[in-house]
């Protein structure tokens, strides 16, 4: 056949594919439906459905004698969250998540800033991979590594002994709250491992937001007489803030829901994740477990809402 034709409108071609293509072109809504259908059904039914079912259960209660679920609407389970033992768990988790987020931002910022502004070419790639590889390497292996490091016979004790600084560690462990028998069963240990595991999620959003700061803006600030501290305070930090907020969504959320790190490395006092796990598992109290898991959802909901208002999603 010849492609050169003298018609201005080519005839409709037969064939199923072509007819379907014509149909979809005339009915873009059908195309949209075909594209969106499977993912929306999957996420909407399987995921949101499960989530709503879970939320529903938090409005039931458990019968203390029979241990069976009482399917009547009640807020009693939520009231249980407020008893001191449970409220402590929530408070402990939120404080830990906030501290981890703050520390992560402080450690992440110089890495992100260096990578965004000074690293060029090959070094940029090295920095990127240097962040991506730890970020993506196995969660459990990372925790395991810290179990090795923080163990009494591990590298920390060894290094401090060599430096004749073991007394410093002992003094720290003797402190209330943050101390303990050894680093691996103290809040300090939990805190360090949380930072280690979630901090990489902070670096990339900060780097992305800093990369959008034109270099001459910093020079302009210096040119106008700003010293480095002022430049940081008035130029760099406000511009990096959306990135920090975006990163903090990860560090905060991931710390809130984690139940493995405090279980493997930490004291025996529970975090929200552990409480959920214990309530739904050994205790068999699904309603309380559900009510507990509503806490991070609500906190993250508020957090995301605030983050959106600060424009953090552009930095993701």
């Amino acid at each position: 056949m010849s492609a050169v034709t003298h018609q201005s409108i080519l005839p409709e071609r037969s064939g199923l594919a072509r007819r379907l293509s014509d149909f979809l072109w005339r009915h873009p809504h059908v195309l949209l439906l075909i594209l969106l259908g499977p993912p929306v059904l999957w996420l909407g039914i399987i995921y949101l459905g499960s989530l709503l079912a879970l939320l529903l259960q938090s409005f039931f209660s458990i019968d203390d004698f029979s241990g069976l679920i009482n399917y009547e609407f009640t807020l009693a389970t939520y009231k249980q969250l407020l008893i001191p033992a449970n409220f402590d768990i929530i408070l402990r988790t939120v404080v830990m998540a906030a501290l981890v987020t703050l520390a992560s931002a402080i450690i992440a910022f110089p890495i992100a800033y260096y990578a965004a502004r000074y690293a060029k070419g090959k070094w940029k790639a090295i920095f990127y991979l240097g962040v991506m590889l730890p970020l993506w390497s196995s969660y459990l292996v990372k925790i395991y590594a810290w179990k090795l490091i923080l163990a009494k016979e591990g590298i920390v004790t060894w290094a401090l002994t060599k430096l004749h600084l073991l007394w410093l560690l002992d003094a720290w462990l003797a402190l209330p709250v943050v101390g303990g028998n050894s680093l691996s069963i103290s809040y300090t240990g939990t805190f360090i491992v949380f930072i280690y595991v979630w901090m990489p999620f902070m670096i990339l959003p900060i780097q992305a937001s800093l990369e959008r700061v034109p270099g001459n803006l910093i020079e302009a600030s210096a040119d106008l007489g700003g010293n480095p501290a002022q430049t940081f305070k008035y130029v760099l930090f406000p511009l990096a803030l959306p990135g920090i907020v975006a990163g903090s969504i990860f560090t905060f959320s991931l710390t809130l829901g984690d139940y493995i790190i405090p279980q493997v490395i930490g004291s025996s006092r529970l975090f929200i994740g552990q409480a959920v796990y214990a309530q739904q598992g050994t205790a068999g109290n699904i309603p309380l477990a559900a009510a507990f898991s509503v806490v991070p959802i609500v906190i993250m909901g508020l957090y995301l809402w605030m983050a959106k208002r600060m424009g953090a999603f552009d930095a993701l």
Partner: protein
Amino acid sequence: MTAAVLFQKVSRHFGNVRAVDGVDLSIAEGEFFAMLGPSGSGKTTCLRLMAGFEQPTDGHIEIFGETAEGVPPYRRNVNTVFQDYALFPHLSILDNVAYGLMVKGVGREERRKAAEDALAMVKLPGYGVRKPGQLSGGQRQRVALARALVNRPKVLLLDEPLGALDLKLREQMQEELKSLQKSLGITFVFVTHDQGEALSMADRIAVFNNGKIQQLGTPEDIYKRPQTRFVADFVGSSNVLSSATLAKLGISAGAASLRPEAIQIGTSWAELLTLSGTVVACSFLGAVNRITVDCDGQRIIISAPAAMPVPEQGANITLAFSRNDMHVMEQA
């Protein structure tokens, strides 16, 4: 003779925005047709209606006498040169040019030859093995042209084809496009916001504003006899004389246009109309000087050859022009 492209009361609305609002248009076969207007005037939407990327909300479109509404772009024997060229980055130049033939099922050898011929036609022989990223802007533009023309379209649509090129290249491409169109005899429809480009290349021009055609005519018509204040302003920044100024000249009309280059300074023959005013500003524009004069609140711009002596700022001068150069507008 059937029109190459025919619009009958065509409208295209996006929500409340009337991008194209009741346009009537008839483009003859073999014509070099320009759609001129500022951005958002509806000219590009008209082009997209011809290509089939948009469907009219209202009205009727024909391409060579055949109804075009509801016909997808891939069934229209109409091709487009995109503003950003839209070359496929993953394909070689040769495969880019041969793309239209490939999807129509032309054999490998035949389409390779056709694509090479098309590349030779746009003066890029032997560039087939490269990738779009390895070409300059001007070269990519030629590839986009070859990619469209290799299909022998009945109508070629060009969307701001020269917008991204620098001045020298633009002038060169204007001539090449013009001669290419002449030798191929294909109907060219091109969209531009540059009046100079439209005036120098097109056989006829449609000036768009707010989704409507303000005036349709030959370049000379448009330039010398603007029918509306918008056309007078947009095409070569004409002076628009107010009714008060016209009254001083003994003419009773709402408004009239007067080209800056049609005005002389200081000379005064009986058959010329004259106005006097004060020089407000002078600027040197290379071949001409632009002189701004204030005549009792009426600003008049004069384009005087650079060889002429420049009046001093604040000087009182007399302006003279022929009644024939002045065009009374139908609407203000």
